[in-house]
């Protein structure tokens, strides 16, 4: 009988749609006008790209992502949409899918609620360049 440490060429892979192992640092929200677009994201770009985006937003929205290109939007479109919000960050998921988001490190979503870190996805864009 082979020992448990013997070489095993075929092992079960983690299911791509699995839950993140780390607890999110940021609560991820989407603007209601783009909620429908968000629900189409996985179909448009695939589960891996969609999860990479969500993980970036939930864990490190303040940092440059390793694999996607980002920039700050310019002019008034790039300004914080209220006190405490960041400038607008444009994230290219693929050449055919982009999102714009802002983050807030002490946002209160309801009266009397605790301040917490949130990311607001403002727009989802599926048009090609």
């Amino acid at each position: 009988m082979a020992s448990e440490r013997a070489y095993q060429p075929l092992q079960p892979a983690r299911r791509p749609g699995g839950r993140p192992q780390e607890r999110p640092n940021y609560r991820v929200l989407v603007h209601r006008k783009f909620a429908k677009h968000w629900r189409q994201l996985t179909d448009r770009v695939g589960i891996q790209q969609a999860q990479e985006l969500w993980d970036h937003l939930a864990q490190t929205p303040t940092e440059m992502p390793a694999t996607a290109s980002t920039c700050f939007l310019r002019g008034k479109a790039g300004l914080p949409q209220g006190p405490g919000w960041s400038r607008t960050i444009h994230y290219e998921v693929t050449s055919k899918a982009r999102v714009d988001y802002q983050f807030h490190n002490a946002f209160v979503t309801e009266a009397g609620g605790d301040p917490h870190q949130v990311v607001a996805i403002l727009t989802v864009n599926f048009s090609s360049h």
Partner: protein
Amino acid sequence: MSNIIFQPTDLAQKRVQVLEAARTGGARVRDKDGTSLVMLPESRLRLLEQLADWGTAGLRLEQLLARATRPTVADLGALGWLRVFDDEDQREFLDELQQALLAAHADEDLGVLDGCVLAWRTTARQLEDPLRRSVLMGHLDATDLEDVDRPDAELTDGQ
């Protein structure tokens, strides 16, 4: 650039020196009819072309924005994509472009200039759509937002 002036025959007889001069700043070759030709690294040529093109575009835009009337798409020409921005944003673009041109010239690197133009063009594309524009130019309120979970392979809109 070196003060050495090569002859056409040097392109065969002194090709190593010609190429080395070209690599390190520029190789000047005097053609038989007296025309002075210069061989440069392509990256250097692109830098000079881009500085000239964007410098001219910046001067043209500066003139347009100094007028009392808002520039039309025809006035803007190749910068027609700026039409989606209001007057204040167009001036902000001009300010950033001028700073980027100075930085690119000083650094001899187009990174800052390319980044500046790309970010403004990206913003223009985002603002072309009325729905995106209404959100990006608006004010964010908690009631505008709803939670989204991590995308799941088994839960997509198409299923």
